[in-house]
């Protein structure tokens, strides 16, 4: 059995603010296997970016990892000292940000940024690093890389810049990439190319990817598994065909409900009545209960544990392995009370 590249267990991230301690991530768990793409969806503020930052070790004060474990190839990385963490960053774990226009340092040539990253993480000399930088640019589909390598970021278009960003993330052949909305800032026509590129690199290199996006079409095409996040928790996680086609959690149902099945290209998340609670007043029990159509008494007092085995409503068939739903509806003895 292969080991997960990244394994997150019961992660908790808190921000210390004047109004008190805000728990932005509360008990999130998931694994990502080599070569696997985990799509992460959820409304704005659900905690997708914070989860990604936590894994890559970039939660900065006033934020802190308050509990749980993050393991890379079985080794804990959430409690490393800053210098050891820095060595892992870029080398083992990389991150791609949303906006390629602001992700690159405007005063450094593209080649300088690539070469510096390569020199930091490998034993290559300057000349070999430059050759590798050109190879990388070529690999991410930048035409005439020998020439373009000496250009400044502003001389590249948005899509080309995101390719440069991806090349930068790939410098040390990381095992895991967090891609936080990598196409949101790009033209629709370019989005598909960038997603295809990430997918291809992931397949060819066996890199694991956590792909944060608001675009269900992208999820359906790219992800192997999906996690639906709500108020800092995972509402539902499972194989993409199950979660997208037959979501179980009422929140996930709301998210997926309005997606046209085939022409799903640029469909954005649908509004569900109400809005996500602020971190300062997440309700007791299930965080979704004020907005849930199926809410019942138990939801208001007991928080559904994402890890207990769940059963489908019809015939009470157990869910597929790896499919978890944090909802009391799918507990055997509550089926009658719920319906």
């Amino acid at each position, binding site marked *: 059995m292969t080991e997960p590249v990244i394994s997150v267990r019961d992660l908790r991230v808190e921000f210390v603010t004047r109004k008190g301690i805000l728990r932005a991530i509360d008990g999130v768990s998931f694994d990502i296997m080599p070569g696997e793409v985990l799509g992460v969806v959820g409304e704005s503020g659900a905690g997708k970016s914070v989860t990604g930052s936590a894994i890559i070790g970039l939660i900065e004060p006033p934020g802190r990892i308050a509990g749980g474990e993050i393991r890379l190839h079985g080794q804990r990385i959430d409690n490393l000292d800053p210098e050891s963490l820095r060595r892992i960053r870029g080398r083992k774990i990389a*991150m791609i940000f949303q906006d390629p226009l602001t992700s690159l340092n405007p005063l450094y040539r593209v080649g300088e940024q690539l070469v510096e990253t390569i020199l930091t993480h490998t034993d290559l000399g300057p000349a070999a690093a430059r050759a590798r930088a050109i190879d990388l640019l070529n690999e991410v589909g930048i035409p005439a890389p020998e020439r373009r390598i000496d250009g400044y970021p*502003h001389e590249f278009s948005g899509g080309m810049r995101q390719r440069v960003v991806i090349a930068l993330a790939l410098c040390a052949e990381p095992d895991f990439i967090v891609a936080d909305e990598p196409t949101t800032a790009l033209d629709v026509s370019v989005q598909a190319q960038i997603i295809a590129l990430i997918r291809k690199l992931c397949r060819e290199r066996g890199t694991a990817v956590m792909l944060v996006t608001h675009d269900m079409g992208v999820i359906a095409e790219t992800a192997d598994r999906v996690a639906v996040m709500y108020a800092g928790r995972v509402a539902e996680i499972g194989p993409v065909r199950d979660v997208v086609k037959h979501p179980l959690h009422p929140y996930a149902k709301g998210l997926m409900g309005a997606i046209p099945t085939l022409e799903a290209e640029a469909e954005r998340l649908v509004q569900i009545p109400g809005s996500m609670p602020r971190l300062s007043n997440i309700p007791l029990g299930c965080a979704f209960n004020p907005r849930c159509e199926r809410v019942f008494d138990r939801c208001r007092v007991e928080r559904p544990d994402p890890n207990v085995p769940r059963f489908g409503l019809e015939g009470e068939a157990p869910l597929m392995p790896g499919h978890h739903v944090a909802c009391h509806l799918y507990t055997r003895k509550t089926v009658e009370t719920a319906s």
Partner: protein
Amino acid sequence: MLAFVIRRIMQSAAVMLAVALIAFLMFRFVGDPVNQMVGVDTPQEEVARLRESLGLNDPTIVQFGRFIGNALRFDFGVSYQFRQPVTRLLAERAPATLELAFTAAAFALVVGLIMGVYCALRRDSWLAQLFQAISLIGVSLPTFLIGILLIYLFAVVLGWLPSNGRGQVVKIGDWWTTGFLTTSGLRALVLPAITLGLFQMTLIMRLVRAEMLEVMRTDYIKFAKARGLRTRSIHFGHALKNTLIPVITIAGLQLGSIIAFAIITETVFNWPGMGLLFLKAVQNVDIPIMAAYLMLIGLLFVLINLLVDLTYGLVDPRLRIAMRS
């Protein structure tokens, strides 16, 4: 790039023309130059002749043209007080002012930059808080008060440094005199340079701190961290380089005001520079000196502005493109 340079030079010339107009109007309307030259008992015909010979009866536009023509040859006439060419008077005193101003500027830039970077990177340390507090004092205290306080402490109470004059100076070439080569000259420079530079130093420190904190929040710094680049490279390469762009502009422009504001410091320390000369000229309504000084300061500001714009373009590749087009 060439088009950009030419355009900027034309703009500079236009500004200088405006400054010249103001200087010229000062001549025309602040006191009558003839009255300054003649005694009370000079006969009326004598005055009229003088007026004619000075060209004061020509149309204003002709006089202005003549003024500009003379100014281009650095001829601003003869000082009423000293009966000497203004240009020579200024040239004699320029080294004192320039040495003071550049020392003050170097002090402000180096210390301000170091303190600013420190405050940005260690923003919560007690030393950073202390720097912040000191900078608040530096910004709010008037220059003459700082000068007097420094004199009181280091010259009167401790007796470490002189409070007056330039010390011993050495002549270099025809007209330059420098205090850099003698111990007494260097010692004399310390207090006035700190006094003159303190305000700019706190300004630069606060600017660098604010700018660097801003840069540290940008996506490209986050991305640099996410790539695991070394902290030193992120702080002193990626972040500092981006911080310096606006700082260059401001610091460069400040050099002009340092020279202009030297008047006060020169007065407090009895520093034999152009500022002191200007102040005496104002007291005695010595218009030629005032006009020349005004033109000189105007020229300095314009030149510095031009230089700053051009270096700015060299540092920032985005602007280099904008200039080319």
